[in-house]
């Protein structure tokens, strides 16, 4: 029986997260990784990994099916789940931006149509500015919506900005910077404090004894 189960986002973040964990002493054999199983254990058998879609990581952790998870801040904000975020990881760095077709001025438009994969973040962002918007929720290739006029602007995740440029779009505002977070279930944080504390400490890098409970504080 593994001590801790960790939900990892499949795709962009998965390889980086596994590399980071390996540095922290949690190694997964390449054999296990190449299999199609969605639920595998690390080499020591102490950790169990669940591979799920990024948007599902917060769900698994909030319900306590996984004790913790690694997920992008963008996904976390969008999910609106109630999770602990004890550690910001330096992987998966990107930013959530508002982008328009070059030449379009948002200030000249009335009701904005905004295409995005992040409806919650987008409406919160424009809501805070008192700007009325109509959100158009898309599942991918959001840039196209601005190019073809489905929407006046888009809210999307940008790593280098190359896709935007190549499609003739321009970034006009950064909503938030996003890196991956270690998220932890509220109950697990208390009940498995020692194991989670060790993991946090190990991920945090040597010399930082964050979360090392039961250690005497001099």
């Amino acid at each position, binding site marked *: 029986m593994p001590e801790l189960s960790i939900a990892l986002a499949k795709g962009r973040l998965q390889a980086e997260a596994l590399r980071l964990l390996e540095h922290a002493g949690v190694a997964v054999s390449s054999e296990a990784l190449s299999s199609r199983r969605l639920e595998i254990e690390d080499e020591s058998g102490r950790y169990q990994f669940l591979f799920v879609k990024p948007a599902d990581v917060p769900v698994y952790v909030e319900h306590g099916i996984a004790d913790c998870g690694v997920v992008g801040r963008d996904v976390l904000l969008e999910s609106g789940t109630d999770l602990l975020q004890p550690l910001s990881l330096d992987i998966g760095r990107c930013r959530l931006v508002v982008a328009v077709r070059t030449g379009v001025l948002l200030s000249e438009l009335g009701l904005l149509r905004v295409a995005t994969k992040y409806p919650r973040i987008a409406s919160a962002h424009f809501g805070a500015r008192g700007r009325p918007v109509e959100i158009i929720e898309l599942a991918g290739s959001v840039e196209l919506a601005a190019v073809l006029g489905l929407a006046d602007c888009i809210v999307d995740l940008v790593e280098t900005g190359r896709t935007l440029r190549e499609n003739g779009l321009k970034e006009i505002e950064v909503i938030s910077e996003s890196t991956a977070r270690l998220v932890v279930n509220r*109950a697990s944080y208390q009940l498995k404090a020692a194991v989670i504390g060790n993991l946090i400490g190990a991920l945090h890098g040597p010399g930082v004894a964050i979360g090392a409970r039961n250690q005497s*504080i001099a």
Partner: protein
Amino acid sequence: MSIFHGWSYEEITTPTLDYYSLFEHGMGRAEAHRAFRFTDTDGRMLALRPDVTSAVARAAATLFNERERPLRLCYAAPVFRQQPHSRAEWRRESTQIGCELIGANTIVADLEVLAIVSEFLERLELGGNFVITLSDLGIFNGVAESLALDATSREQMRLLIDIRNGTDLEHFLASYSQPKDAHDFAQLMQLSGKREMLTWARRVIPNEQSHAALDRLDALWNVIESLDLTEHFEIDLGDVSRLDYYTGLIFKTYVNGAGTRVGSGGRYDGLTESFGRAEPAVGFVVELDALADVLRSSPRYANLRLESQAAVSQITENEPAVLLSKALEKRAQGEHVLLNLNEVKQCRN
């Protein structure tokens, strides 16, 4: 409920349907907002009760105004809350069981309630898989005041502590204090532990109000230690939920197998004031359905069912009169009976 009775708590039944304004006063606007609301024939707003404590506090200040203090009241009742989709707390209707000790603000009153919570969880025989975390809101309030935070930044700091986001908390504090202090405070808020947390907190947090709160926790912990109960208790200074409601000690309970908190409680000395009689109070509530889920998957539950089946006397007879007379006889002795209706001679066509 037998545990409450054992501690001399009286059961109270509050209305399922009540004026919405009661809960707005009792729980604070943000929490009350989750109630199912509708209007009465005269246009006033009604709600299905989203909690029981509000109505208990009202009863204490009005119905039981003449009664001697302290009041000891307990309840088990369904509460109703709107829940967002696919969240861990998904029940719109859930059963809460809890108690309130009203009119006493001593540390003994706090300990009484903690002892009841701990007995309650102990009796469930969860194999020791539970934790009760303690904190005192005076600590957070003291820090917020000494930094002279306005309401917005205070809430921002509360949120960062609540989700244990040490990195951002440190950034947030950078504009208010020395980097070293900010770092220490951020770490302190991330951890939970035993007595050493208090010693540590005293070093990191300099203001008087927080120290008074730490002294209260310290006194509480001394007794817990002397009772040899420290195994199930933790000090978690990062617990800063529902500041508008609680005033001093707060605690939460976590049980292995349930992904969410199964219980919470604390001191709410300001609540009864809104009903016309200001007095100190402390109480707690446990989410029974979440606990039942945990128990259902435990091996003990299966045994419990077998035991309760074995305790029933099955009665099989052909003659209706004989069957019933046997049953009545056993019932008179207080036994559980189960009548086998299939073997009875048919009287009807």
